[in-house]
């Protein structure tokens, strides 16, 4: 477990992807961009973000990793494979991950998935492309928007 620190007041400029269901057309270009840059090919089912389509396709809701202040995935990882990197993004260390799927089970947005890699199961999630996400770059409508949040803090006193 990560130790609780009730006195943290560290303030940081956070990058986040703001999603706009009203503009999203469900074209999946974000997902195609994601798997091309991360996996070297196209398949939206393998992308690290999702689009929930409902009501006979009237609603298209993009879902992206929140890189939470209080990341459930990180909290439940039994081996410390999920950490927050120096830029504030919640990332998985492949070498350490044992593919136990606890992160996938407890992420409320289903943003962690388990895939076979070689002979082992590994967890996958968005790493924010290190700060310049390809999905945002390629979204043709602005339904995915890169924003910086000034006021919030990364709290470690969850």
């Amino acid at each position: 477990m990560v130790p609780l620190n009730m006195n943290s007041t560290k303030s940081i400029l956070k990058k986040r992807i703001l999603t706009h269901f009203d503009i999203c057309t469900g074209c999946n270009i974000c997902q195609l961009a994601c798997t091309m840059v991360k996996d070297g090919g196209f398949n939206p089912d393998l992308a690290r973000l999702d689009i929930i389509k409902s009501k006979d396709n009237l609603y298209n809701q993009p879902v992206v990793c929140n890189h939470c202040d209080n990341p459930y995935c990180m909290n439940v990882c039994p081996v410390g494979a999920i950490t927050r990197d120096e830029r504030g993004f919640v990332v998985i260390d492949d070498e350490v991950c044992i593919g136990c799927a606890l992160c996938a089970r407890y992420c409320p947005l289903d943003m962690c998935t388990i895939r076979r890699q070689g002979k082992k199961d590994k967890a996958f999630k968005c790493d924010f492309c290190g700060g310049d996400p390809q999905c945002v770059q390629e979204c043709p409508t602005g339904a995915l928007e890169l924003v910086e949040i000034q006021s919030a803090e990364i709290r470690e006193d969850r």
Partner: protein
Amino acid sequence: MDSSYMGKFLVIDLDTGTTATLPLSDELKTAFIGGKGFCAKLLYDLVPEDTDPFSSENVLMFLTGPLTATSAPSMRGVVATKSPLTGTYLDSFFGGHFAPSIKYAGYDGIIIKGKARELCYIAIEDDTVAIKSAARMQGLGTLETLEAVKAELGDPGFKVASIGPAGENGVLYALIGCEHNRQAGRGGAGAVMGAKNIKAVAVKGSKLVKVKDPRKFMEAVQAANEELRNSPDVQGLVAAGTAMAVDFANEAGILPSKNYQRSTFAKASNLGDEGQRKHLWIKSSACLGCPIRCTKMGAVRTGKYKGTITDIVEYESAALMGSNLEISDIRACAYLVTLCDELGLDSMSAASSIAFAMEAGEKKILDTEETALEFGNVATVEYLLQAIAERRSGLGRLLARGVKRAAEIIGKDSDVFAVHVKGMEAPAWGPRGVSGMGLAYMTADRGGCHQRAFPVAYEVGGEKWQGKTLDPTGVEGKGELVFHLQNYQAGTDTLTKCDFGGFGVSPATYADLLEAATGLHLDPKEFDTIGERIWNVTRLFNLREGIDPTQDTLPKRFVNEALEDGPAKGHRISKEDMHFMLQEYYRARGWTERGIPTKATLVRLGQQAAGI
């Protein structure tokens, strides 16, 4: 070497319940590329001569192209089979999200032969193929089926192609619904699927579609997207989809009204983008990988049909279900088209069949006891759509066969207002004001179709052809025009490109995309040659299946009756006009005066083996 081809087709034989894979041959790749090329070559090779479209011997194919499932803008998939409506070669393109899933499962296409003993659905997940009972789905609509299949498979990630009651019941123009808002609409592929006892095909895959040179590919994608942004036509579609064409067609005098008796409609604006924006639209929606987002999703909020979730009412449907039936309430029109989609009826052929019945009713040729056969009557249309899909009642059974057969059955000279080519109901571009469009209908490989060549753009759309302005109602040069447009269209349909993408993306960029994705080098001009090859193979298929070239003709209404209204008032396309255009066209094609490919033409295109 990575390539965006998956390298094999999945072959399912429903007679034996077995599956196999068929390798994608180099010949198929280099001579036919994909999409429409695959359709033409595979259909010619796999369907035995004189096959009954509803028999076990007919094949039903869901095919892709090399760029399907990638981020190359606006790619689709295509269904191919021998059409029960026309007896011709049939391909029917569909956008959306179903076709890419075929490639993610590892295939360039799915080829289905034989006939299942009971209503079934086919679930394909990568290498696993299961044929499951669909008994409980009998009679369900296309979207109801899609939901039922996903629920039974316990996985909403499957993409589903499905038929409604119309396909189950053998309506000759039944469609295949391909996920939401998209259909393989024309020519009755849904009825072939029904005859094979397939209620749905569900596909899911975990494979990556890779490209040969990712950096060059993404550069070409960016170039294509830039061309789309710079095209005024494409930007029109971004703003208002095909609904914008209603007012244009009305002003040009080519908007059908009252079963093509007229070519303008006083309330056209109600049916076009203005009316749809006001009464229906809420947001834009797109097919996979497409930045154009021509679909405008909406809902009917008021009136009798409130609560209907609806796609944009596309131009063809707005005209044929609207002005051609003298219905001007776009909310009713949206409801009726949505009903067609759910019942699994091609809204174009269904609406045209009803227009035919209404005219027959008004002329006292058809008995009107069953329902009020009068133009503008929405309740009649709703009643007839249900009756057709279920093939119940005299009118339902009659109209389920399309206007050509309906006219043959009722006789009494009703063929003079049966508006079809080779049995396929004509599209919504009345050709008397645009004679080249008439020739495009006469010669289209699947009967009355507007998607093989679109001379309208050059005849009244303001585009110049080889630097010249064309006379819309003239006949000279139209054969050459249609020849070139058809070839380029078919050539780029090998990529499964959407026509709307084709308005913006240049041949050179398509070639760049293809090369970066597959390594196949193509001079951009070669799309024309590949298209020409395809046109000869589909022609040979149709000749082999007994489609006589005398059927390269227009409906009697366009030949005998001069237009009563609009800019081309007084004009018709006479027999002499047809003959002139057709001979010029046959000459351009290298076909005989009777419309048969010569040996020299086939040798030039490398298709001598397919000679007749």
